[in-house]
Each structure stands twice: as structure tokens, then as C-alpha cells.
């Protein structure tokens, strides 16, 4: 078995959850893409650069979990807003359910008899 570096390990963990983190941020309401990307990239520990979030948003949009709309802005040209679809909401609920039990299971294994 090959040894996984810190960066590889983080990348593997991130791959499994990052999409649902985006959905979770949008659960609170439609967000301007720029703000959404900055907020997500600024979350400690996720280790995501702003540039890599746009491909992710596109994938979620293609899968029907997000939709975008243009809204006028006081500070310049119209802005692209991202919003959760009904399908996205369902996907997030399912993730929430599985995540809790998954996290508990991993914690149990990691903690052992401590």
C-alpha cells in the first residue's frame, strides 16, 4: 500500500464533501457567485482555492442541483446568483443523514476504547 501524503489525504477527504458544503452554503438562500466562492475558499481546513470552485459549481448546475440567475447590481454589471434547486435540497438532506452516521462511525473507529 502506498503512503498517502497530507495533501493527497486532504484532497481525497475534500472530494467527498466539498459539493455538499456548497449546497449547505446555498441552503440559506441565493448567493452571488463571487461571495459564495470566497466564503467557501476561506473555510479553514477545506484547503480549496477559489479557482477550483467554479468547475464544481458548474458540475452541480449540470447535475440539476443548482440553478443560476442574473440579477442587477448597484455596483456594476449584472451578477450571477446561485440557488439551490429542489433536487439540490433533497441531495443535501440525504447527505446530512448519511454524514451524521458516517462521522459517528469514523469517530468510533478512530477513538476506539479511549
Amino acid at each position, binding site marked *: 500500500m502506498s503512503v498517502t501524503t497530507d495533501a493527497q489525504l486532504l484532497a481525497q477527504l475534500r472530494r467527498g464533501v466539498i459539493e455538499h458544503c456548497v449546497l449547505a452554503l446555498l441552503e440559506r438562500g441565493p448567493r452571488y*457567485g*463571487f461571495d459564495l*466562492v470566497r466564503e467557501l*475558499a476561506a473555510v479553514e481546513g477545506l484547503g480549496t*482555492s*477559489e*479557482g*477550483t*470552485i*467554479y*468547475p*464544481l*459549481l*458548474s*458540475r452541480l448546475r449540470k447535475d440539476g442541483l443548482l440553478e443560476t440567475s442574473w440579477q442587477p447590481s448597484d*455596483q*456594476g*454589471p449584472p*451578477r*450571477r446568483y446561485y440557488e439551490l434547486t429542489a433536487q439540490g435540497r433533497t441531495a443535501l438532506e440525504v447527505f446530512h443523514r448519511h454524514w451524521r452516521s458516517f462521522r459517528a462511525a469514523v469517530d468510533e473507529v478512530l477513538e476506539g476504547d479511549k
Partner: protein
Amino acid sequence: MNAVKHSAAAEWLARFDRAAAALPQPRRGELRQELVEHLDALIAEAASEEELAAAVARLGDPAETVAAEGLPPVSRARARAALGLLLLPLTGLLYLTPALPPGLPSMALIVLASVVVLTLVLRAEAAAGTRALAVLGALAPPLAGLGGILDKVFQAGHPWRNEPDGSQYVWASDSWVVVLGQLAMLLLGLGLPVLAGLRLRRAETAGLSLDVLALLLTPAVGLATALLLSGSRLGTSVGTMLDGPLLVVALVCAATLLAAGGLLLARPGLAVLTKALVLAAVLAAPVGVVLLAQHETRLAGTVWDAGAEPPRDIAADLTRAVPDSVRAPAPAWVPDDQSTRLGLGLLFVVVLPLAAAWRVRGREL
């Protein structure tokens, strides 16, 4: 100032453009638009150049952005091979030198360029279909150029046939086959390397299988083969010498197509109609090449002694039917009518293979 004009943002975008060459359009354009919007917002918000530089840095390496699209990166060896293929058609300019056929130095340069690109292709990693396309792309310019030169030599020397009544006939390759065959060679020589280069520049997504590639190339290869086979049998000395080798090449092409058809028929998941179309395409294409390779017989004019009266109404000759006795020989099963031969030939060589490839690709995607 916007992202395109601001130096730090423009530089990041330029790096992105280079890294994103692997992405298919229109996705590349969409992603770029989103990133431009993001950079514009950064510029509007930044209070100083330092702040903006830090904000651009937070975007990360453009290669990471492209990698997040889920495509594997294109290796340097593969990018070099792709560049070689894209530049290879420039050797076509050497065919425009005043001497025809091109002189030895020009031909040596063309072959050398092809060999160098072929080496680069063989050293680059790619799926079987992409690699086969790239190998063919590397070989296509000199082969198509040679085919074009041979065709010129074949067509230049065909013999005349004089009848006792003064009529003069000539056997020649079908005019449409000449036009389409030369166009096919031009497309193969210039287009195939470019197509292969563009495909190699992109990371593998849905692979192009070898069997589908064979079907897709059948129209161009079939038309070029028909033209060369037809030309080589016009009775010139070069044609007589090359008739056998060209026939062998044609048989190898037919065998390759039949093998590709066999692979497709054995592939699970294809509809019966698609399999029937594939079978019809691979069996009919060689027949189509034979139909297209037949000669047409044209009335070339009337001969009479200098100073004497013309033997008959010359103007009426234009509407006169070609007598069977002077008609170019053809297998018994080949229709006499030239239009029928051309129509069936194009159906078998062009339409059926493309339809079969379209059906199979539709299933793959």
C-alpha cells in the same frame, strides 16, 4: 479597468487559457467567463495593487482549476506530439515549389518532418484509438502527397483509341471520382494531422475506438483508393508498374475495415439495426471502391486528313452514344451506366460507413 486589461488578472487568464486547452468547448468558454467575472469583481473591490495581487493568488494555480474539471492533465510528451501534428500540414507548402513532383530535398524534408512527428506520437501516451489516429495523422501528409503526385502521373498519360471511322475515344477515370478523390487526399493530408493534434491536445474523455475510427476514415480512404486504382489501370508505364502494389494496399485497407466490422459485431450492447448497418457498411465499401474505380469512355474527337473534308457532321458527334466495342472493360456485375456506378459507389463508400459510425458513436456517448 477589467480583468482582460489588468496585468495581474490578464496574466492569470493567459495561464488559464494555456492550461485549459485540454478542455472541450463550450465548457472552456463557460468556465473562462465565470473566472473573468470573478476577476472583475476582485478588481472592483481591491484597494491597491498588492491587495489585488493577493486576491488573484487566492484563485490558485490555473492548472488546478482545470484539473478540478475532472480531466487528467495532458503530459508534456503528449502536448509536444500534438504540436508536431498541428504544424505538420505546413510541409504541404513544399508541394507548391515550382518543380512537380517536388525535388529530392523537398521530399526528404517532408519525410523527415513526418518521421519526427511519428516518433513524438509513439512516445506520447494515449488511448488506442487516439494513438492510431495520431499515427495516421503523422503518416498522412507524405502519403497523401505521394498519392496526389501519382494521380497526376497516371492521368497525364492515358492512351487514345482510334476507330476506323475517324472517331477517337479515351478511357479515363470518372471525372467526379477524380475531383472527390483529390479532395479526399487533400483532406487526409492536411486535415488528419490537425484532427489528430487537436484530439491529442485534449485529455481523454470518451475514447475513440479503433473500429469506429476505421469506419470514419473509410469515405476519404475509399475515394482516394478508388482514384489511384482507376488511374493505375489507365495503361501508363508507371501505372502498370504500380497496379499490383496499389491493389495490395487496397486489399489491406479492406481487410482492416472487415476486421473493424468484426470487432463491432462482437461488441455487446449494440442494437440489431446498428449491427446490420455495420455489416452492410464493411461489406459494401470494397464493392463501392471497385465501382468507383471503373473507367469512363469519352469521345475525344474526330480525326481526318489535313486538307480533306470532315468525314461527317462533327457537331452531331457530341450527342453520339459510345459504341460498346470501344467501351472500357469492366467486370460483368458492374452497371454500364456511369451515374448508377457513381451513385452506388458513393452510397457504399461514403454514406453507409458514416451512418454506421454515427449509430455506433450515438450508442457510445
